[in-house]
């Protein structure tokens, strides 16, 4: 374990030191103690990633910008409930931005791109496995996603990355809703048993 990520590390440094480091978990802990400079540093570190996640789901820049603002307000208010021993700060932030973005989509709706590059849309999740980070934490997910059948994998990716509902996935894949629900479920169970092995 790298010392700057250890759950006890935050106890031994002041917030200026924490701000100078670039670990999200340490910064979030400092934000929880009320450090505005840590929040700024966290924004500098994470805003491009989080805005990208939000934009991919809500598809409208002005809404994604609102989502990103809400995320950092929420981080300011809730950072003290983040517990570093639970894991990476970036995963915590990902959860918040996805929750907010999905909430915005439910309230405001969005257009579902066709997946047809000839219409100017991105092709359906090309080379998904290759695009996942080669970081240690992602190795197992890469391996396990590769073991799913293609429909299951596409369902999981469209739901998590694009924030698609069952019905939207069915529309995108031109598949019956019942099949999509079953692919999601079986894909999750296959992923779980692979990830736990």
């Amino acid at each position, binding site marked *: 374990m790298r010392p700057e990520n250890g759950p006890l590390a935050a106890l031994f440094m002041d917030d200026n030191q924490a701000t100078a480091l670039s670990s999200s978990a340490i910064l979030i802990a400092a934000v*929880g103690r*009320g450090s505005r400079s840590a929040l*700024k540093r966290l*924004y500098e570190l994470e*805003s*491009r*990633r989080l*805005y*990208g*996640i939000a*934009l*991919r*789901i809500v598809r409208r*820049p002005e809404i994604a*910008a609102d989502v*990103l*603002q809400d995320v950092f*307000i*929420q981080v*300011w*208010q*809730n950072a*003290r*409930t*983040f*517990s570093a021993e*639970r*894991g*990476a700060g970036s*995963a*915590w932030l*990902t*959860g*918040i931005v*996805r*929750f907010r973005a*999905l909430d915005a989509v*439910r309230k405001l709706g969005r257009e579902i791109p066709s997946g047809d590059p000839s219409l100017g849309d991105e092709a359906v*999740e090309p080379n998904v496995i290759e*695009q*996942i*980070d080669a970081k240690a934490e*992602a190795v197992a*997910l890469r391996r396990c996603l590769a073991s799913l059948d293609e429909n299951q994998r596409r369902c*999981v*990716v469209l*739901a*998590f*990355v694009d*924030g*698609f*509902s069952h019905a939207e*996935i069915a529309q995108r894949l031109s598949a019956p809703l019942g099949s999509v629900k079953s692919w*999601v*479920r079986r894909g*999750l*169970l296959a*992923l*779980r048993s692979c*990830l736990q092995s």
Partner: protein
Amino acid sequence: MIPETPDELDALAGEYVLGVLEPHDAQEIEAALATNAELRRAVAFWAEHLHPLSALASPVEPPAGVWGGIVARLDGPARNPSSSRWWNRATPWRWSTAGFAAAAAGLALYITLTPMSSAPSFVAVLHAPQQDQASWVATAGRAGLLVRAVAGGTPPSDRVFELWAIAPGGAQPQSLGVIPPDGVLRLGGLPDVVRDGATLAISVEPPGGSPTKQPTGPVVFVGALKAM
């Protein structure tokens, strides 16, 4: 209905984290997270293991005004975080979201709707730590304390809601009593702890209330008392 078989529970938790559940099913999960440790474990498993997928969304530079907007909102009337509060330590599930702004909006609505002739001395809006919706309204004055459910007023089966107050800056919650099944709790007098800046919280407890005089279950609603 939260399933009990491991496969069903894990699949449902995965669907929750993916975000494909219908809103009422997702709300059922969120309510159950407060009391179901297996469900918390399953949700945490998926949140951690699926997180690397988010790298498939390419990072994009956000518009220039976003940080300025955040600063403006922090400098506005919203609450600032303060030092570690007991309910955060006591809550096994680390809530991912909160709704202080929404609670403030709910408070404003409540004030708007309350006739001036019965204006209370103190008022609090309690909300679930992970939801934006105001769930309970508390008013306190010479006539005593009244806490009433606005939404989400039903505890899990075989459990009760217990109301607690914490003095401003205090660490020890003081029980104000178990909330009756109809979601309305009335106290004839005002304990000393019920004053401006005190925190009200509702925890999930065994029937009859906490056996230890301190919260034993998760805190599911929380809010601050403000003088009117």
